[in-house]
């Protein structure tokens, strides 16, 4: 088996999880998004989304801030530079793997 194919075993497990992959993909196209938007777009429950966001925050891929927009409280999530880099690397690895196997 070539090294290119074997590299799929090195996939970032934090991003590889489907719900977290969806969250980082959404966040990669915007400056920030709040909890409600992410919940609606991913279809996850509050608890589930909270758990995934905490995991991403621990890994340094997402920054979570409690803030206000006007008088509305918001939990705003941003993809960090490390998160952006990890997503790019993940996409590259998956694309390479798909090319070699198709």
């Amino acid at each position: 088996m070539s090294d290119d194919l074997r590299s799929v075993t090195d996939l970032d497990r934090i991003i590889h999880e489907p719900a977290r992959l969806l969250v980082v993909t959404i966040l990669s196209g915007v400056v920030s998004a709040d909890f409600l938007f992410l919940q609606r777009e991913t279809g996850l429950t509050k608890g589930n989304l909270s758990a995934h966001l905490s995991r991403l925050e621990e890994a340094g891929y997402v920054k979570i801030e409690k803030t206000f927009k006007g008088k509305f409280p918001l939990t705003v999530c941003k993809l960090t530079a490390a998160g952006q880099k990890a997503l790019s690397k993940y996409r590259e690895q998956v694309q390479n793997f798909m090319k070699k196997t198709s």
Partner: protein
Amino acid sequence: MEQNYLEIQQRVRHYWFKDGIGEIAVGGLFIALSLYFAGHHMVSPASNAPLYLNLGLFFVLAFGVVLTRKLITIFKMHITYPRTGYVEYYFERQFPLPVQILLWAAGVLFVVLLVVIGRWVGTFQWLPAFLGVVFGLILFAFRTTTSGLMRFNYHAALSVLLGGGLSLMSGISAQYSLSWYYGVFGAWLVVWGVGILATYLRENPLPEGGADE
């Protein structure tokens, strides 16, 4: 996977247009411009009023653009964010001040250039058609590159047809044509926006107890 990635990105971009607030606000700005040009058409050319109105165009535009941006933010804050969530886009970020000044200077230069061309040709009859094509191209480019939403093609088509039609009508002043162009196009955008907003409100009631974590 790449296709899914692009689809998700597109879906997130669509979200900004989901509530129709942008169209209502821009439509309102166009209606204000329509009233401005109608005023221009109605005042006596012998008085000082046309001169003051010409000078006032810059302020109408500057005030209108700032007010439109503020209104969009306020409406989204009260209508959209509590229902379906808050998203900050890269295109919503303010340009740095030097870039803002440069953009305004380019805008003023563009208007001056149009006036010079009009004087040189001896008529401003072509102006609605020109504006119709310019806005049409902007909307079409917007549809292909950013929004991907079909309704921007309809807006673009109306802009071109309306501008062209008004330019072909003889016997009416340029100000009167421009007033009609901005008025009809502005009303069209407001009607679309209100329709989209009504659908959005029907489909997205306020979540009970708030969804913020």
